[in-house]
């Protein structure tokens, strides 16, 4: 099934060799695969807060990046807030979209599929009776998340569906959202 045509190489800007190299190296040295992701957040005023994202731990040592990233979160005006940033739940959606989309690019590269455009739209339902404490049977979080991809690529519809499925299978944020995680919140 490997025809000569398949050797024409796709370029989605993903360095698959480097990723596969890292995969190989980490499978031989599982300690180096232990990462810690971090964020620090400071309240500004009202529902507004600013999160700094800087160092992380991985490959056995502290890692620093070229610049510190900031994410501002707030709430829209109908929540009597000033809308200085996206709501935290929308940041969660952007995390999911970013993770799945990066995965699609990587899987496509690995499968030698050239992507022309990848667009995701996300919608998550939420019943505010949960967070407002109106009905104890209603959960606080999303009651479901719907992600719709529009993908233009040199591939059949089936191949594109397989890309999207494989990206979910390997996505950290998809896992974080779909499965329970132990969270401990303490006062220092």
């Amino acid at each position, binding site marked *: 099934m490997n025809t000569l045509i398949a050797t024409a190489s796709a370029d989605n800007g993903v360095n698959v060799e480097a990723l596969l190299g890292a995969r190989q190296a980490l499978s031989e040295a599982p300690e180096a695969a232990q990462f810690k992701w971090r964020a620090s957040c400071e309240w500004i005023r009202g529902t507004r807060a600013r999160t700094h994202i800087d160092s992380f731990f991985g490959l056995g040592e502290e890692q620093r990046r070229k610049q510190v990233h900031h994410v501002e979160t707030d709430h829209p005006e109908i929540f009597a807030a000033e809308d200085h940033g996206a709501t935290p739940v929308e940041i969660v959606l952007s995390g999911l979209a970013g993770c799945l989309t990066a995965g699609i690019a990587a899987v496509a590269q690995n499968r030698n599929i050239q992507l022309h455009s990848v667009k995701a739209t996300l919608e998550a339902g939420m019943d505010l009776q949960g967070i407002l404490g109106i009905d104890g049977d209603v959960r606080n979080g999303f009651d479901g998340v719907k992600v719709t991809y529009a993908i233009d690529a040199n591939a059949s519809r089936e191949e594109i569906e397989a890309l999207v*499925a494989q990206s979910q299978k390997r996505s950290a944020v998809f896992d974080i959202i*779909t*499965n*329970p995680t132990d969270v401990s919140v303490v006062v220092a």
Partner: protein
Amino acid sequence: MAACGANADVRRPVRGIDVVIIGAGHNGLAMSHCLAALGIDHVVLERGEVANAWRRERWDSLHLLTPNWLSRLPGYRYNGDDPDGYMSREEVVAFIASYARASLAPVLTGTTVTRLQTEGTGYRVSTDRGDWCCRAVVIASGAFNQPVVPRLAADLPAGIAQLTPFSYRNPSQIEDGGVLVVGASATGLQLADELQRAGRAVTLAVGEHVRIPRVYRGRDIQWWMHAAGLLDQRHDALPNGPDDLARARAVASPQLVGSRERPIVDLNVLGAEGVRIVGRLAGVRDGKALFSGSLRNVCALADLKMHRLLTTLDDWAAACGYADGLTPGERFEATHIAFSPATSLNLEREGIRTVIWATGFRPDYGWLAIPVLDRKGGIRHHGGVVDAPGLYVMGLPFLRRRKSSFIHGAEDDARELAAHLVGHLQAQSRRYRERMAL
């Protein structure tokens, strides 16, 4: 010429032999048959009786997933009058027991191996009935000795009965009311179907699974896989090498039921029977079972892979001219998922009083005192040749070929490994003679 060292414990009887085979399931017996044909002196040690796993570790209604015509072992094949049927558990026991008799296998039953260690240039096999010293050992103790139960089982409320495919026999064991079956490979699918039909309210937790139809274009799917050569794919000939092999070795059993009517039993059929389909069991908190939200995706993956397989089979049939005698290719409906599958169930409120762990099996190497295990507890081997000279293993998933863990997969593996083993014995004897001649 056994390799018994000087440190033999005088209190225990010690016998010498060229080869010890551990386990008298079909794999140990197949190896015994091949070694006998090559004139190699050996013994088969079996803790229970011949075909012990089929006698003690299977639920009552289990029938093979593989049709009778496919059931064959070296020098032996199914010769009954129902080639297209699927053997019951008892029939498998009879099939293997009569193979042991027909091949005059030197089996010592009621003999449990308690320790395997190297000794000199060979091995010492300790049992509850004395030790054996030998030059080579074949581990045929089975790949499915223990049910795998996830750690979160400990979080279930105390009042809930927990069963595994080893302790489950039939629906009469299960209290009325709700049952949660965890896992939707062959075992979970079959138990969910059986219990729902027996009037229990079944919830089935579904993780990654392999969906294939029992019958495709009028033929059993096993016929297709066999005829198209997919089951003969070798461990050293996969397109992406070790990565593909590791994945293929971890693939779960397909969603199949062995029944003469050859029904297709998949998640859609179970859903129509009233089974509640939920995602992978991901946690238990405060008496609530939490299910993964990945259900849609694991089903989409299984549907895509099934259709990819069917396309491969269609292409093969067309290429070799089979297509004429077959009904046209079909495509199956996508797996239906409820509008909003439950991600959390209060076990008590739902009346779920039993949980069945159909979450796979693993081998038990508690007696293996040779450093050949990888960090996940599996034996390091290349096509059954273990990383210790003269040590072999059989019956593991995709050991040498995709069919290695199936009954009909033993034949090729046993012949090749027996030949390798004889080569080892000969080389060892040659070295020994050379040393003596010096």
